[in-house]
Structures are given as structure tokens and as C-alpha cells.
């Protein structure tokens, strides 16, 4: 057990609700289980510690109507959700890296207010829910992260990579934690300590004030744990190390030595507070309190995706192109996708079937729950309610003498929940940023993508952006709904280099597969001039590059992903058209300045579908 991990467990156990929780990024395994066991032993024996599976529904999470009890009692009986049940304890969120932002927002509001506002199924309650969360994050790569809004509300970001180390560490006993829980309310904190923590947070480039607040609370907990009644410097140091350091987005300006275990990235890649971090002479305290010369203008999460090279900054070309892409284009693609999905390919058939029983509930309809459809208890009861008196009086007397059911529900009362059939669509933009494209049309292609983005925004779809140049393709933007982020990632896209078209299509296929596994429908929009010159193995040469690209395209087609290829070369090329055919994509030439003809072309394409 690493020293910091044990410390975090103890601090968290002292003040679970106040500290929000722990984001525990670790593979499933002994180290993680050991830590959870430790936490369990440190928490009071009677405090609940519940596990929450991924995709827990609102009823289970927040509460709702208790069907069994309601039917038995003949009046509505509320079922408290996990959040309310865990009041005063800890919830362990499994696979939190796959949590939706919606679920994260539900947890977030409970963490903020310490209570559950239950406004569901005719129930109107406010339930106490002072909980701390342990978010288990098994993300394999940098793309898989906790939702930022949740990570923000958890004081500790703990990372356990390697195997558990057997090292003597200051361990605390449950009694000590219990004593600290009593004491933590009385711990005094000097204004200078607050000042120091805030200065440290600023020097590390931590924007959110929650980090400073958590650090202050962690310092209190540390003091309480050590049996002190005032927060001392060492407690602040612990708080800064455990709460602030993992959130750092930049190195403090001075002194230069600290935090030398590599540049701590922003919150999307929290640097683990490891052993050498614990040896730090509390750098934040010594950091100059004033802000560095330039105010932080960019959000932290864009910093890594762009990683702008000074020279490349000059390459940023965001000349808005007037390439008008009609608003309906993506919608027509969607139709194409639906049509294609009907073809009996194994993968997509499964996805469609699943969609019918999941997704966003859109009310209820009359009908019996069969073939996996979910009964809507509330609507069923509502339908039965007005008839109760009549039905009871109509019951045969013999049956009534045996046992009168509290509620007589008949077959015609049954309602099932309807879900929205159409899954969410995620459009993957694959942008050619190679030299040949950059010269000709990169700026315009960006403009075109932005117009398409605006179109996606109107339909509340997600977008992802993949760019390719030089020898590789990289995901500039994982699927998101934020137009602002998409725009920024495009704006920072430099141009130049070769055209690794095969890589790009492979990347798009991989991303499309990921999206499909999430139950969403991918659409690939490829903007390129079709002049591939880098083969899959990274070697230059038009011939092998083109054949590799065609092979990759065939694979994409086999996946049944609907696609659009926008030809960005000044004169439409047959190579791009061949590629489109191989991908099974709609082909669209984007002739220079010919917005009008483009318009007509798209109408023609849309009409054909």
C-alpha cells in the first residue's frame, strides 16, 4: 500500500461528505481491492458503503415508487435510492470512466447540496444524502476519463498503477479516524493557511476554486487526524500534495526543482502523487504568491490536445470558408444509415435491437410488458386507480372473503415505457491537414466542418474530430456535444506534411467502432483530396498508399458505417471518387467557391436516398 494512498483513505474517512470523494484510477486488482478494504475498516462500522453499478437508473439512484409496497399498502410508497440510502457513508461507483455527463451531474448536485431532491413518480421529497464517492476509474488510455464535472467535485485524485508496494507507511487505525471525525469540526485554520493554499493553487494553474476549498478541508482533516486543534504547516503541505498537485496544469514558476516527475498535465491526466512527490518540500508554499505574468486564457483541457508549437501557431489557419453545406446533409446521412442497418450484417442488427429497449424514456403507452419491454408501474397504477371502487364491488364475494386485494389491476391497465428508438448520432469528422490539402483548401475545409458542426449542434448530436497529416492520424477531439470545444480543436489544427489516408480511415473505423459499442450511431465525414501518399507502414509512395487506403476503406464499408466523402481538391479527382465508392460513402465534390453548385449536388444526393 503506497503511503499516499493510505493517507488519502484516512483523510477521506475523516470527512467523506466534506471532501466529496476519491477518483481512484487503477486497474481492477489486488491493489485497488486492498485500498477499498482499508477504507472500509477506517470508516465507522455502521456507516453504509454501497457499490453503484454503471448505468444505474434514476429510480435506483435517486428513488421512486416502490412497486411491491405500493401494491400491498394500496397507497404510494416511496423507495429511497442508493444516494439516500448511503447517507452518512460512501458510494463506490464502478467503471466511472464510462459514466455519462448526465449521471455525473446527478451525483454532482447531491455532492454539492448533501441532499437528494426527489421529484419523481408523483413523489416530492427532500432526502438527506451526505455521501462521499469513490469513483473507480479503469480507463486504459487518456481518452477514457471521469467526467470532468465529477472529477472536479472529488477532492482526491489517486492513481495506482504498478503492483502494490509493501512499504511501511504511517497507517491509521479506525479508532484514530473515529477520534478525528469528532475533532474535525473544531479544528481552527489561520487565514495565512488559506492564503497559502490559494496561492499554491494559482501557481499550479488550477482554475477552479473547489480545489482550494477541498485543500482547506483536507488540511483540517489532516490536522484532526494528527490530533491537533489548529492546522499546521505540515497539514497544509499534505493537503497541497494530495489535493492540489494532481490537478496542476502547469509548473509553478519557481523554484524550478519541485514536481520534477514530469510535467504534471492538466486534470485530464492527473499526475499521481507518488513517493517522490511526497518528498517535495511543499513547493506551493514557496511559490511566489502573485499570478504569473499572463492570465490563463485557455482552458486546461484544450492545452494538451493542441500542444501548440510556436512555429505551428503561425500555421493556424482559420479563414472562414464560405463553403455552404446545406443544413439537411447530415440528416440525409442518418437516413442512409438506417437503411443500411436493415441489411442483415450481424453487428448493426444487434445494435438496433438493443436500442429499442434502451435510451431515453419518452413516456408510456398502453400494452403488456413482453419481449423485454419494461412495465411503467406508475402509469399502470394511474390507469387502474379510478376504477378501484367499481372493481372491488364487482369482485365475486367468495374471492373477497379470502383476501381482498388492495388494488385490482387488470390486463388493460398495463402500460409499458417507451424509449426513443433512434440512438444518438455521433459524427466523426476526419480532416485532411496534409500539405497538399493545406495549400489548397484546409481553411475552407475547416469552415465546411464548422458549418456541419453547427448542423450537428442544432440536432444535439455529438461530434468527434480526427485529423491526419505527416505520418499519423490523431483524435483531436473525442466525442463531445460542445461546439465550443470542437471549434477550438479545429482552430488549432496546423497543416502540412504527407497524407496518411489509410491511417486516417483506420482511425475513423476504430472510433466508429467505439461509438457503436456505446450504443450510438456513428457517421464518418471524411474531408480529403484523396491523394494518399503515406502507406500504412509509414513509408512514402503513392501506389502502396492508395491501395492501402482502398483496403482500409473496404473495411470501413464492411462495418456498415455510413459515410460522406467531401472532395476538397480544386478539381474533383477520380481517386477520391474511387475511395468514396470503396467506402460505400456518398461522394461530394467541394469545387472552389462553387457553393451554389454544391448545394445542388447535395440536393441531388439527398434526393437519391
Amino acid at each position, binding site marked *: 500500500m503506497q503511503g499516499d494512498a493510505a493517507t488519502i483513505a484516512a483523510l477521506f474517512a475523516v470527512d467523506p461528505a466534506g471532501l466529496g470523494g476519491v477518483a481512484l484510477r487503477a486497474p481492477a486488482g489486488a491493489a485497488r481491492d486492498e485500498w477499498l478494504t482499508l477504507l472500509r475498516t477506517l470508516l465507522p462500522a455502521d456507516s453504509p458503503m454501497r457499490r453503484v453499478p454503471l448505468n444505474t437508473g*434514476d429510480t435506483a439512484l*435517486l428513488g421512486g415508487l416502490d412497486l411491491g409496497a*405500493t401494491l400491498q399498502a*394500496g*397507497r*404510494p410508497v416511496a423507495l429511497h435510492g442508493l444516494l439516500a440510502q448511503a447517507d452518512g457513508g460512501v458510494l463506490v461507483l464502478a467503471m466511472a470512466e464510462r459514466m455519462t*455527463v*448526465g449521471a455525473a*451531474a*446527478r451525483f*454532482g*448536485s447531491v455532492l454539492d447540496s*448533501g441532499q437528494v*431532491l*426527489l*421529484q*419523481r*413518480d*408523483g*413523489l416530492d421529497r427532500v432526502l438527506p444524502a451526505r455521501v462521499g464517492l469513490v469513483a473507480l476509474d479503469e480507463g486504459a488510455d487518456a481518452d477514457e476519463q471521469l467526467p*470532468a*464535472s465529477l472529477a*472536479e467535485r472529488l477532492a482526491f485524485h489517486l492513481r495506482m498503477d504498478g503492483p502494490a508496494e509493501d512499504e511501511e507507511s504511517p497507517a491509521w487505525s479506525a479508532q484514530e479516524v473515529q477520534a478525528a471525525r469528532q475533532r474535525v469540526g473544531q479544528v481552527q485554520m489561520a*487565514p495565512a493557511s*488559506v492564503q497559502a*493554499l*490559494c496561492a499554491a493553487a*494559482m501557481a499550479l494553474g488550477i*482554475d*477552479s*476554486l473547489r*480545489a482550494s*476549498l477541498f485543500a*482547506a*478541508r483536507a488540511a483540517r482533516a489532516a490536522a484532526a487526524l494528527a490530533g491537533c486543534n489548529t492546522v499546521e504547516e505540515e497539514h497544509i503541505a499534505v493537503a497541497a500534495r494530495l489535493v492540489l498537485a494532481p490537478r496542476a496544469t502547469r509548473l509553478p514558476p519557481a523554484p524550478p526543482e519541485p514536481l520534477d516527475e514530469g510535467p504534471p498535465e492538466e486534470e485530464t491526466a492527473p499526475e499521481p502523487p507518488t513517493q517522490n512527490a511526497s518528498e517535495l518540500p511543499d513547493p506551493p508554499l514557496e511559490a511566489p*504568491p*502573485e*499570478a504569473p505574468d499572463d*492570465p490563463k486564457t485557455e482552458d486546461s483541457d484544450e492545452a494538451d490536445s493542441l500542444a501548440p508549437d510556436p512555429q505551428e501557431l503561425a500555421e493556424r489557419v482559420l479563414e472562414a470558408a464560405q463553403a455552404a453545406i446545406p443544413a439537411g446533409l447530415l440528416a440525409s446521412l442518418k437516413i442512409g444509415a438506417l437503411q443500411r442497418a436493415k441489411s442483415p450484417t450481424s453487428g448493426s442488427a444487434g445494435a438496433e435491437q438493443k436500442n429499442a429497449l434502451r435510451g*431515453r424514456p*419518452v*413516456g408510456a403507452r398502453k400494452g403488456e410488458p413482453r419481449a423485454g419491454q419494461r412495465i411503467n408501474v*406508475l402509469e399502470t*397504477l*394511474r390507469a387502474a*386507480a*379510478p376504477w*378501484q*371502487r367499481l372493481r372491488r364491488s364487482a369482485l365475486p364475494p367468495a374471492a373477497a372473503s379470502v383476501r381482498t386485494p388492495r*388494488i385490482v389491476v387488470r390486463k388493460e391497465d398495463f402500460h409499458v415505457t417507451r424509449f426513443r428508438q433512434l440512438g444518438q448520432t455521433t459524427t466523426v469528422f476526419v480532416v485532411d491537414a496534409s500539405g497538399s490539402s493545406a495549400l489548397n483548401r484546409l481553411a475552407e475545409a475547416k*469552415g465546411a466542418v*464548422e458549418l456541419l*458542426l453547427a448542423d450537428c*449542434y442544432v440536432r*444535439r448530436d455529438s461530434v468527434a474530430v480526427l485529423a491526419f497529416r505527416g505520418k499519423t492520424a490523431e483524435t483531436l477531439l473525442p466525442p463531445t*456535444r*460542445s*461546439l*465550443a470545444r470542437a*471549434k477550438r480543436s479545429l482552430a488549432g489544427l496546423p497543416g502540412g506534411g504527407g497524407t496518411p489516408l489509410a491511417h486516417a480511415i483506420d482511425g475513423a473505423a476504430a472510433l466508429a467502432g467505439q461509438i457503436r459499442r456505446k450504443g450510438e450511431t456513428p457517421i464518418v465525414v471524411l474531408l480529403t483530396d484523396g491523394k494518399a501518399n503515406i502507406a500504412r507502414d509509414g513509408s512514402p509512395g503513392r501506389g502502396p498508399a492508395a491501395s492501402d487506403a482502398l483496403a482500409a476503406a473496404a473495411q470501413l464499408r464492411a462495418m456498415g458505417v455510413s459515410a460522406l466523402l467531401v472532395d476538397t481538391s480544386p478539381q474533383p479527382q477520380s481517386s477520391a471518387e474511387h475511395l468514396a465508392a470503396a467506402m460505400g460513402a456518398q461522394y461530394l465534390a467541394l469545387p472552389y467557391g462553387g457553393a451554389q453548385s454544391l448545394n445542388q449536388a447535395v440536393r441531388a444526393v439527398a434526393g437519391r436516398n
Partner: protein
Amino acid sequence: MALTFPFSAIVGQDDMKLAIVLTAIDPTIGGVLVFGDRGTGKSTAVRALAALLPKMRAVKGCRYGCDPDAARCPDCLAATSGKARASELVGVPVVDLPLGATEDRVVGALDLERALSQGVKAFEPGLLARANRGYLYIDEVNLLEDHLVDLLIDVAASGENVVEREGLSVRHPARFVLIGSGNPEEGELRPQLLDRFGLSVEVKTPSTLEERVEVVKRRDAFEQDPQAFTEQWKKEDDKVRKGIVAGRKRLGDVHIPDSARSFAAQLCMSLGTDGLRGDLTLVRATRALAAWQGDKSVTQVHLQRVAPSALRHRLRRNPLDDAGSSTRVERALAELASAPQK
């Protein structure tokens, strides 16, 4: 009820506080949309509102909080037979619409309890009814389910909630100030919903160390001893409350010269805002600002202060313009101000 962090103890965030105060002075301005960084006290400010607002007079026991002088809810209409109903002072409702809420609780539905136990078909009002004459607050408004957004868009515009479900047919007043907060990184709002917000403010994390320290200090003090902290800030809160009451009184007397109206219209035209709502909101917000500051007449200074809030979310989204909406409003303001007045 748990104590909320006092409104006046919020450090900085003047735009947000001003917008909230203005809608308290003149609820017809519409709602407030607060978008911005995480951890900037968005929700704190809204939740502080309930404690801040002066009490209002309402029909006693009315589930819709009807104004005794204009009771229009089904209960009051059924009960009134000439004689006036007793009234009482109640706090202005600030109703939270949580993300997991179901439609039946938002709009109201058949009262299941009474239906099951007594076989009576009765209407159980929802959150929209409770928010009548007050505030409806949606945290993370950009994550609200689409079908709830549809409901809100309709009700927020008409001020009336029409329920047609389970054999019930009810319509009741639902006039509320919509307050939404969120983080634009997590998704954006539909233009129709955006339009329902009168003012929009962008909040940023305080950038100076002093401010940040002050925020943490106050928050820490509040969490250690909420009661004492609230007591300590009571005077300041009272001051704001009195200002709101005075502002409401003065509101009707504020003169709006034609020059100000035409300035507002020109500004909207040069920005190309959709519809006239922007124009109208701008004038109303300006008048409320003048009333708040105790000025008799609306001046260009007032206009310039509120124009960004009133207009920035109404600009037609231009994916090709990188300048933020606020910048565009300010640019247009500067151009107009320098141009000779006609």
C-alpha cells in the same frame, strides 16, 4: 431548511449578482442564464436568492401561490364566490428542478395517493405550479432531458401550464423567472430555450489571489459555523433586500427617453438579433437598473451596462466568427456610441 450561503457574501461576480437583482426588481425581464467555469459559485448565488427576496402576499393555502388581487388558479376560481379569501405573507418560491425529475412531477399529474385510497380524481400540482410567481432554477440546464426542455419552453413563454393527461384537464398560472446554470463545455442549449432567458451572464473564476483567498475564507467560515456566518452577513443582505423593494417602487416612475429607446433598437439592429424580444428585454433591464440605482431616467450608461447581458445569447450563432458574443456586443456598443446620435 438548511441555511444557504448569504447572497451578499459572494465575492465578486458582479454581473451575475446584478442580473439576479434586476430580475427581482422586474420579473418581466425574464430569466437569467448563468454559464461559466466550474466552481465559481453559480448555484450558490441562486440558492441564496430565496433568503434574500422580500416576502410576497399570497392566497392562504393556495397551492399555486396566487396573488390575492389576481387569483386565477383553478382552486381559487372555484372557491371565490364574491368574497375575498384570506391571504398571508409567504416567501418567494425558489424551486429547484433536479435533473432526474420526471414529467409528472414537473407539470403535475393525477394524485396517486387519493386516487388509490379514495378513488378520487384529483390534480396534484407539480414544480411549475410551485414556482408560480417565483423562480424556477435548473442547475446544469444544458443536460436537461429534451422532453422537459420542450415543456419548459412552452410554459415559460405563455405563463400558463396546461395539463392534459390521465383524464385530467387543468390549466393554471405558471409565471416564473427561469434561472439556469451550466458549463458550456458539457453541451449547449437549444436556441428556443436560450431565448426564454432574459439575461445571460458569463462567470469566470476570480483571477486575483486576494479574491480567491476571500472566497475560500468565507466559504470555510460558512461551513464551520453557518449560523454565525449568516448572522454576520444579515445586515448586508437586508441592504440588498431594501434596495430591491425600493427599486420595485421606483420602477414605474423611471422615464425612458426616446433617444434611449432608439439607441437600444439600433444596437439590436446592428447585431442582427432575432425577433424583438432582445430589444424589449434590453429596455426593461435598463429601466430596472436605473430603478436599482435610484436614477429617474434611463441613460446610455445604463444601457451599456446591461446590453451585453441582455443580448449576448441572442446573437445568431455564427460558426465562422471566432469572437465571443460578448465581444461582438461590446464592439457594436462602441461603434454606436461613437457615431453621432440622430
